[in-house]
């Protein structure tokens, strides 16, 4: 079954090769896209409907009913912030709908702290050929970002 992955953030959609982290840029985590978020307080939303199987302040994974997992990673190297500046508005293990608020953060603060707020959105365990990027450029949280065949 094809699924559409929504942008978790409002900003500019970019390709993974433009992400300033070789592991994401090299598609080692998986294929997908990234969002360079607008530098304002915003709430990252679930990219697909499913279960919030993993929720950290700076990253989360939603798994669809048919078993596909999508990772949203808020910024690069943000694991080192130990959750500071991230407010969870959903609960791990909860069933979420696409577009449901998950984490509130401010990309401007992350950037001011010397880290990139660019946020990869990854189709876990997917073949790169199964992904069609839909959007390039301005994107609003909840808009379709890519298509997973």
């Amino acid at each position, binding site marked *: 079954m094809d699924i559409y992955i929504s942008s978790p953030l409002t900003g500019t959609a970019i390709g993974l090769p433009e992400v300033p982290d070789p*592991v994401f840029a090299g598609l080692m985590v998986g294929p997908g896209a990234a969002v360079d978020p607008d530098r304002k307080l915003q709430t990252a939303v679930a990219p697909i409907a499913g279960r919030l199987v993993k929720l950290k302040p700076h990253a989360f994974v939603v798994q669809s009913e048919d078993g596909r997992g999508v990772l949203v990673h808020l910024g690069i190297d943000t694991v080192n912030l130990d959750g500071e500046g991230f407010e969870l508005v959903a609960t791990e293990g909860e069933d979420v709908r696409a577009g449901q608020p998950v984490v509130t953060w401010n990309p401007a603060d992350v950037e001011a702290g010397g880290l990139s707020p660019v946020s990869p959105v990854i189709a876990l365990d997917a073949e790169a050929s199964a992904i069609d990027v839909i959007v390039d450029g301005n994107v609003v949280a909840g808009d379709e970002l890519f298509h997973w065949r």
Partner: protein
Amino acid sequence: MPERTVTVASKVGLHARPAAVFVKKASELPVPVTLAKDGGKPVSAKSMLQVMSLDVRHGDRVVVAAEGDGAAAAVDELAELLESDLDG
């Protein structure tokens, strides 16, 4: 079935980057390999989704197991990877 229990060295645990390095290596191996938290249910070491969902932290004891021809070598290779710091 060959298996080894090791302590995870990566400071952030098996989070995005270390998990990617680990899963990529596991995926290149010719045999089925699994990863489990000590005493927990094993998951495929070749799945990013399953490995990330395990939520392995720095200092956690994990069990790597494999079966088939070359299983012992596969386990050794992954165990060594887990015992090194993959954060860099």
